[in-house]
């Protein structure tokens, strides 16, 4: 039977603003399926985003949503979670919003291990503002501000999150649509800061400049570069050259921030 996405979408909001072939719609569908699997209540779920193409996502979903300043999704979400620790807080954003302008908020949210889920849609570019290169644009690739090729090496968001202290890090792609909701379900269930990076395609500002002929070519590239973590264990370093690992990359249990903060409040009350 067809999945009923309509009950999670604000009436009259579709069609969405994303370009033809943009993977953000596929990620949004994954998020909706994950919310349905976990039976998340609309009034008990907050989706927070910054600015950018990917950050338009909360506007379409019918639950508590917050569209905030550029890169500040993690800061606002921390406020929501601390005020109402029983809420399920989900953050959405792109690579530019999350790792450049909001890079500082991102690493410190990781460090605190506050119980939230950050879905980063990495399309390697700033799409909405006209295709400027982002910290995730691979070396040599073209953007509107690097017409002769980008000299900078790109960020590995998953490694950055692990290094900063996130306790659950996973990666998927827009091609592997079935996997997205499973990763998001696991991330929401995890107690602590969880990061789900979804490799995405931007046919309009990235694909066009980097000689991708069509959306299908971009999707097939995601299929080719993705290697599941289990399969990668049996592969040599040479075979893994240019590949990206997908699946759950890192998981650990650490004290969670809102619980630790509640203890601080208790201690402060007791000392009076």
């Amino acid at each position, binding site marked *: *039977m*067809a*999945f009923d*996405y309509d009950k999670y*979408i604000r009436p009259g909001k*579709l*069609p*969405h603003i*994303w*370009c*033809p*072939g*943009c*993977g*953000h*719609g*596929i990620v949004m*569908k994954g998020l909706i399926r994950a919310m349905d699997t976990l039976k998340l209540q609309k009034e008990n779920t907050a989706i927070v985003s910054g600015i950018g193409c990917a950050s338009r996502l909360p506007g379409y979903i019918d639950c508590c949503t917050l569209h905030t300043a550029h890169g500040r999704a993690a800061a606002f979400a921390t406020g929501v979670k601390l005020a109402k620790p029983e809420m399920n807080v989900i953050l959405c954003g792109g690579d530019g919003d999350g790792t450049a302008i909001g890079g500082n908020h991102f690493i410190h949210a990781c460090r605190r291990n506050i119980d939230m889920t950050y879905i980063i849609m990495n399309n390697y570019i700033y799409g909405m503002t006209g295709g400027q290169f982002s910290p995730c644009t691979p070396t040599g690739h073209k953007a509107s501000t690097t017409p002769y090729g980008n000299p900078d090496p790109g960020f590995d968001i998953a490694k950055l999150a692990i290094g900063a202290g996130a306790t659950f890090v996973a990666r998927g792609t827009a091609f592997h*649509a*079935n996997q997205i909701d499973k990763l998001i379900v696991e991330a929401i269930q995890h107690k602590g800061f969880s990061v789900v990076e979804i490799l995405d395609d931007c046919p309009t500002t990235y694909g066009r400049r980097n000689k991708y002929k*069509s*959306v*299908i070519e971009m*999707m097939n590239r995601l299929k080719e570069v993705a290697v599941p973590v289990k399969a990668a264990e049996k592969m040599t370093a040479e075979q893994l050259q240019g590949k990206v690992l997908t699946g759950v990359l890192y998981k650990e249990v650490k004290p969670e921030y809102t619980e630790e903060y509640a203890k601080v409040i208790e201690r402060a009350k007791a000392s009076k």
Partner: protein
Amino acid sequence: MEKTLPKIEIIEKYCKGCHICVEFCPTKVLEMKGFYASVKNLEACIKCMQCELRCPDFAIKVITE
């Protein structure tokens, strides 16, 4: 036993003509008709739901009994 065919509903108001459903359908049920996707060969449908899963625009519904 007779094979039951699903109903593939394409919402043209939402479709942006990205070709994803047409290309990733394993049995080539769909085609582009002008700007929009449309059903060409419903008999070949195996109800794998790939088109519904992959459509970024919420434009396809595969209704099975």
